[in-house]
């Protein structure tokens, strides 16, 4: 299957390569410094245009359009959290059914902390986190464990259990809570592995340490989705991966949302993949929400920080 991404790939690469070739070797640019600066602006503008196009054309049909009157599946209301120093201040955003909300921002702005709040691995100092209308900030520990079973989480490092095979890793949530008969467990594991484009017979008996980084991420996604959660959370799903694998993972997240109507929260600073999969983007800056809106709105924004953020990747 040729995706729009694949079709664009070589052409885009060619254009970049010719840009590179012209860069330092261009005799005009060497003599005239101002022209180099102009070119830098031109390149940035091109990238911005490309991002905006990405958001407009390619992914348009992949993204769901939530109706506003639907009830939010995840809602963060005026969250404030601090340890030794303040981490998050007055954070509020909602995720509607079938939406993919990407939380972006510089390192250390509390993006991953927001995920931990949704999972109730942390409790905010003030404010409320609701999941399917239920406030989870005040529930008991065992109740929190039960609520987490409805969420699928993909960790930055995949966090696969290294003492278990790929099969046992994916089967874990099924055996643990769903109490599925063993033949059904196997067919479900095969199904999820096929969904994430892995060959079940090849990888099922392997240990996580025998897999490549991208494969581990995919097994992580398979484990997260095994028990059919309605909400998926991703912590830096594309960090440390090569551009091609990044594309695969991004498409996978979009596919999950498109085919299974899963609501997702993705924490990332890979702007390109964020623009490909997000229905809405939440930008954190200095512990607060600086911007919330669609990728198109973000690309079109004249805000100085957003411009810097998009230009500086």
């Amino acid at each position, binding site marked *: 299957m040729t995706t729009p991404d694949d079709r664009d790939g070589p052409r885009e690469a060619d254009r970049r390569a010719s840009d590179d070739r012209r860069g330092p070797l261009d005799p005009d640019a060497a003599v005239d410094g101002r022209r180099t600066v102009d070119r830098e602006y031109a390149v940035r503008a091109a990238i911005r245009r490309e991002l905006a196009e990405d958001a407009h054309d390619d992914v348009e049909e992949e993204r769901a359009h939530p109706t506003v009157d639907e009830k939010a599946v995840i809602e963060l209301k005026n969250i404030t959290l601090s*340890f*030794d120093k303040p981490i998050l201040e007055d954070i509020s955003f909602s995720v509607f059914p079938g939406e993919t909300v990407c939380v972006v921002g510089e390192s250390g702005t509390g993006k991953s902390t927001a995920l931990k709040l949704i*999972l109730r*691995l942390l409790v905010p100092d003030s404010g409320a986190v609701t999941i399917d209308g239920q406030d989870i900030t005040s529930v008991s*520990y*065992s109740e929190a*464990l*039960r609520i*987490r*079973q409805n*969420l699928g*989480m993909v*960790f*930055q*490092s995949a*966090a*696969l*259990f*290294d003492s278990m095979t790929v099969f046992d890793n994916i089967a*874990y*949530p099924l055996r*643990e*809570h769903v109490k599925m008969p063993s033949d059904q467990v196997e067919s479900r594991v095969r199904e999820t592995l096929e969904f994430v484009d892995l060959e079940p017979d090849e990888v099922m008996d392997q240990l996580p340490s025998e897999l490549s980084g991208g494969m581990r991420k995919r097994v992580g996604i398979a*484990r997260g989705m095994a028990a059919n959660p309605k909400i998926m959370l991703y912590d830096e799903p594309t960090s440390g991966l090569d551009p091609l694998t990044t594309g695969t993972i991004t498409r996978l997240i979009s596919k999950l949302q498109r085919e299974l109507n899963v609501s997702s929260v993705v924490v990332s600073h890979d702007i390109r993949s964020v623009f490909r999969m997000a229905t809405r983007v939440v930008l954190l800056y200095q512990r607060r929400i600086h911007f919330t809106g669609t990728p198109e709105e973000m690309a079109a924004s004249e805000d100085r920080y957003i411009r810097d953020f998009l230009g500086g990747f």
Partner: protein
Amino acid sequence: MALAPSGPAGSTNFPLYVPAFFRRLNSAAKQKVLAVQEFASLGIQSLRFAFSRPFYRTDLVQQMDAIGVQSLPIVLLTGFFTGMVLALQSSVQLTTFGATQYIGRLVTASMIRELGPVLAGLMVAGRVGSGIAAQIGSMRVTEQIDALSTLGTDPIRKLVTPRVLAALIMMPILTIITDFVGIVGGNVIATLYVGLPTGLYWQTVWEQIASGGFTFRYIPNDFIQGLIKPFVFGGLIAVTACYYGLNTKGGTEGVGVSTTRTVVTASIMILVVDYFLTQIMLVVFTP
């Protein structure tokens, strides 16, 4: 069960004239008390989970294998050579009094009451304690503990309870084996080196066991004393290892720190607790 984050040293509202040293001391002392409290609550919670569902039976069997069966070689070696060296040393002393027939009694008393439990405990602390701390610690730093929580499993129930139970069950068994091979080691030296008949040796072994008195007519008090200790040591080793493992911070280096701390803390606790247990049991079991 990560330590609750606390304010920087001296952040408590002290009057300004209190020197910084005392503020730091105050905060350090609070940290220590908190650590003891968390340690105790981890132990209690892990035992509580042993009596409620879900119970991870497969993990328990795996841990019994890892803690008990796989520790057999070092425990056998330690016990055997300790028994031999005890017999050897005592033979030198007892020969001067012409009392070599007491070698069996001496070896038995030392092995069953003290050396068996303590040596098995120290060996298990080194081998098993470090293993548990390293495993749970690396699970912590690679987010696997968080992954367990997010998959709706209580990490204490899944990781700590099976390990603590396995240690509680296997330590007394390992100790019995250590005691036995130690006494056999003494027998080898007594027979081959001193020339004491094997029959006489085992007769004195039994005399020694019987001399401590019996509980419920048939259970020798020495056995009870010798089995309460490893039971306590087993619990201490497993809870210490799990505590340091779960509180690991700072990547792979942190795993190393947790492992070292576990072995040091567990070993010291075994020696200190051994003294107090002996004191208590001397009072309880003295006829």
